[in-house]
Structures are given as structure tokens and as C-alpha cells.
């Protein structure tokens, strides 16, 4: 602490300070430029064929693009909220499934010695190396061969359903969740668990009353990461789903962007992009504090 106050360094000159400020501002402009551009195009009237200049607030600025996005963003008869609900179901379901199963599996891998531990970890590590695209063909073919007839949902092809997309996503998300949670559990001190074991608590009890509460930040982070990737998942849903009522936000965005300038509904695409980005960004900003708080450190020190 004292060393930083003992400034033996020369104070930077005014010219240096101005130069630094200009450089930082210049970088800030390049960072914000695309974001501001999208925002300004999203305020353009719907009959705009193409942006005709760089205006911060466009001529005849209006929110009609947002209203149109909420009501019917694509030519399919689905509203933004129906698309968002589909994305929410897929993202929420896969995040819950992978974190729930993942934390159960991470506990013995992090804490207990047993036969096959190394093998299981190697398998998970190997699977993690594969990008999601790499299991597309077998998942598509396999799920396509399964016809389900469920009580409420009726008869359907598993491939052409959100359940099928969810299964495909879990295929990659579960190994990631296990690995991530195991890595976090490894950093949690064991004193509390050892004390509980001395007191005669069972493994199940130790897991439920000690490990689970301590792992909460990691569970939240892993769940959040899973949710984010599910919220904008594209490969599987684009490949699997054919009925407009099942479509997701990412699919709609991809379908909206045409190849030629005149074919792009500029204000709609921009408003849609913003509405697609806001929910996860807001959740991230709100939970940042919670995510970075060190619950594990506190409980041992206290």
C-alpha cells in the first residue's frame, strides 16, 4: 500500500494526459459505433427502404419498428413473445437439466476417490473438445427416427420438436456443466465437509447441506452461461424445426436478414437485434455482483 503512495515517478505531462484521453475516447467510439448505429436504424420508420446516411436520431424517428417486432417480426404468424417463449423454454430447460445433473456428477469427481474416476474425466474432456456442430448428423438422424406419442403433447417426431432441440443442446451443455462445476468445487476449501464427516454426516447430507449452498455462485454462473447459449442457439433449431410455431428468436433473426440491401427490413432487424440482446445483458448486469461474490471464502473465515 505504502509503495503506491510513494510516487517516485514523474507526474505525466498535460500533453500526455490529453493524448491518453483522446486515445481512450477514440477506442470507445469504435466500440460504440456499431451499437449506436443499430439503435439509430431501429428508430427509423418502417417504410425505410435502406438507411440513407449516418444520423444519430433518424428523420421521422419512431418506435413503430419495435411495435411491429412485438406483433409480428417475420412473415410467419408468430409474435415476438411467442418466439421469446420458445427460446425461453429451450434455454431454461437445457440450463436447468445440465446444471442439475452436472452438480450431482461434479461432486464425486471433485471430492471422492473411486474406480473409473480418471476414465470418466477423460471422456468428458474429450467430448468438450468437440464443437456443437460436430454431433449434428448423428443427432439429427437418431432423433428423426423416434416418434413419440405423449399424453398432453400428442404424437410428434422427436427431431421436429423443441424437446429434440433441447436434447441435442444438453448433449454438449452437460459435459461443459460437469467440468465447470467440478473446477469450481475443487477451489472450495474442504474444512467444513471434513468437520461434518467427523460429526458422522453421510455423503448425501454433506452434499445437500454444505457443498450445494457453497457452490451456489458456480451453479448460477454455469446456469447463466447455459441459458445464454440456449437463448441464441442456432445450429440445432435451424436444422431440426420446421413448424413456425416452434421457431426461436435466433431462427427469426437469421430468416429476417436477406442478401440484398433492399430485401433487408432494416428497422425491423435492428429493433429485433436489440430486443434479443437486452434480456441476457440485463440479467448479466444485475447478477454480476452476486456471481463474483466469494461465498466460499467467507464461510471458512467466519
Amino acid at each position: 500500500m505504502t509503495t503506491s503512495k510513494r510516487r517516485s515517478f514523474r507526474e505525466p505531462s498535460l500533453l500526455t494526459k490529453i493524448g491518453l484521453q483522446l486515445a481512450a475516447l477514440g477506442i470507445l467510439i469504435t466500440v460504440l459505433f456499431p451499437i449506436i448505429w443499430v439503435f439509430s436504424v431501429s428508430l427509423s420508420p418502417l417504410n425505410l427502404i435502406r438507411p440513407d446516411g449516418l444520423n444519430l436520431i433518424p428523420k421521422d424517428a419512431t418506435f413503430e419498428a419495435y411495435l411491429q417486432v412485438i406483433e409480428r417480426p417475420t412473415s410467419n404468424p408468430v409474435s415476438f413473445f411467442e418466439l421469446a417463449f420458445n427460446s425461453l423454454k429451450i434455454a431454461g430447460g437445457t440450463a436447468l437439466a445440465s446444471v442439475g445433473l452436472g452438480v450431482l456428477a461434479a461432486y464425486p469427481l471433485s471430492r471422492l476417490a473411486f474406480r473409473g474416476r480418471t476414465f470418466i474425466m477423460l471422456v468428458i474432456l474429450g467430448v468438450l473438445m468437440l464443437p456443437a456442430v460436430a454431433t449434428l448428423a448423428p443427432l439429427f438422424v437418431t432423433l428423426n427416427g423416434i416418434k413419440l406419442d405423449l399424453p398432453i403433447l400428442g404424437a410428434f417426431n422427436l427431431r421436429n420438436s423443441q424437446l429434440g432441440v433441447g436434447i441435442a443442446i444438453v448433449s454438449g451443455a452437460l459435459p461443459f456443466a460437469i467440468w465447470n462445476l467440478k473446477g469450481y468445487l475443487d477451489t472450495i476449501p474442504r474444512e467444513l465437509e471434513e468437520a461434518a464427516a467427523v460429526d458422522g454426516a453421510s455423503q448425501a447430507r454433506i452434499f445437500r447441506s454444505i457443498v450445494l449452498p457453497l457452490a451456489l455462485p458456480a451453479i448460477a454462473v454455469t446456469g447463466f452461461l447455459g441459458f445464454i447459449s440456449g437463448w441464441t442457439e442456432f445450429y440445432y433449431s435451424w436444422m431440426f424445426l420446421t413448424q413456425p410455431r416452434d421457431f426461436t428468436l435466433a431462427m427469426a433473426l437469421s430468416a429476417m436478414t436477406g442478401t440484398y440491401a433492399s430485401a433487408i427490413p432494416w428497422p425491423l432487424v435492428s429493433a429485433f437485434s436489440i430486443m434479443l440482446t437486452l434480456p441476457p445483458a440485463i440479467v448479466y448486469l444485475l447478477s454480476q455482483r452476486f456471481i463474483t461474490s466469494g461465498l466460499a471464502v467467507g464461510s471458512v473465515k467466519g
Partner: protein
Amino acid sequence: MSILTRINRRSLTPYMFLAPAMVVMAIVTIYPLIFQFWMSFTDYGLANLRQGAPAPDWVGLENYVKILTSELSIPNYSFLRLFLYNIFWALSNVTIHIILGVAIALLLNHPGLKFKRIYRALYVLPVLIPPIVVATTWRNLFNQDAGAVNMLLELVGQVFRIPPETFSIDWLRQVEDPISFVPLPLSYYAMLIANIWLGWPLNAVVATGALQAIPKDLYEAAEIDGAGKWASFKTITLTYLRPAMVPFAIYGFVVTFNLFSLAYFMSSGGPFGRTELLVTQAYRLVNERQLYAVGAAFAVVLFVILLTISLITNRISKATARYDDF
């Protein structure tokens, strides 16, 4: 291994915790991977997909041979070009990300800079935006007729009295290479710009963390010893940055190597498939061409490539030991 809790070797407890996840993984992850391996030796195609269709024929290594010798009957396919471009794409991006990330971290760490917290908070905004939105936005930014990039260039050009028609640039589809002796299409440079925008902020965050861990006295001692700015940067700053940046560079390399969104949504692999990556090619084989067996074999090839890369990078991260190991 001594840190692991020793429990009765016969105890079933670990397996009961593992069972749910392992059963699910066996069905949705491991089985598809094994099935994929089998598929890759067959001619599984659209005809074998419908219910009650005949089983595909065994073709041995034919799919692999066709993939590696670029004999696939799809347009613009060359395995060697795809592979070399993919390596170059990842290397060029990561190099620029790290240099920019470190440079901007140094700027943010400079005692003369004001409002650091605001800059730090705003600089990471690109990371919060979903990849598909980033890719479609940059694709629109580079649009020939209405994109902001061309308009910005026109504005700058006006100052120098350059006619605006000069900047009707078809960034993502122009066939001629912009630099005649460098065999890279214009869309590569456009995607490079987009990915620089996306990639440097996280590098700067990592570098900032490492910079703040450097004891200030080291610089003072160096100055007293008469070391110049460059010498103390090389011996102190870089030494402390390396252990943080090397693993992150490796991570960045793998992420960029498999970066689906830009190549798929921005350039669609064009022009003539020259900006296609292995992952987007794998997706197109299955999704657009319905060549399921070829796609499966392609995925196996991709796995071998990624395995090799991770073995090499493991070596690199071991070779660049941490400074406190010396």
C-alpha cells in the same frame, strides 16, 4: 490424489451421484458419437432417412478419402485450402487480439488516464452481445448500398474530395483480392475487423488483471538501475503478462478456430467458399447438402484436427512455465 476423500472402495455412493448425469450423457452424447463413427463408413443419405428405409451401404474409407482428396461433389470444396485458411484465420485474429488487448490494457493502466472505470465498463459491451446478433449486425454494417462502413468512408472521403462512388465497396462478395499478392478475399478483412471488435476486450480484461499484479517497486528499481522504458517493458511487463496471456491466447485460438457465427452469417463462406471454416463446412454438409455420412466423417476429421491442436497447445503451455517456477 491424496486430497480426495477416501471412502470405502466398494461404496456405491459416488456412482449414485454420477448415475443420472452418466445415463443422460451415454444416451445423448456418447451414443451419438459412436453412431457417428459408424455412419462415417456408410453412405447414409437422404434416402435412408425416412421410416422403413433400407439401411445404408458400407463404403469403408470412401468418405474420408473423398474429404481429404477434395473429391466431394459439392462446389468450391478444397480440404487443403479450408484447413490452411482456418489455421490462418485463427492465428491472425488471436495475434491482433493479444497485441491490441495488451496495448489497451497498458493505456487503461496508465496513471495519467482519467475515467478509467467508465472506459473499462463500456469497452466490454461487445462481449455481452449474442454472437448471432454480432454477426448479422456486422454483415449489415458492411452492406454495399446501405451499410455504415461505406457511408463512413464516403464522409471521410469528402474531406479529401474523393468521389463517393469510390466507396461503393462490396465488402462481403467482391471476388478480386484487395491485395494482389495476398491470396485472401475482401470478406476476410471485413470479418477480421468484425472479430477484432469482438475479440480484443476480453484480452484487455485478462491483461489488465495481470498488469495490476505487477509490484510497482520493480519499475522504480529498474528506473534507478537506469533501464529505459522499453527495457523495463520487456523485462518486467512482458514477463508478468506471459503466464496470464499464453493460456488465454490458446483458449482464444480454439474459440476463433471454431468461430461459426461470423463465417456463417457474415460472408456465408463466400466468395466461392474461400472464407469457409471447417465448422461451417461441416454444418453445410449436413444441413444444406443432406450428406449425413460425409458430414459424420467430416466431424471425425475435425475431431482429430482439434485433438492434435490441443496436444500441441498443451506442449506450448507447459513450455512457457509460470514466472514463479523459475
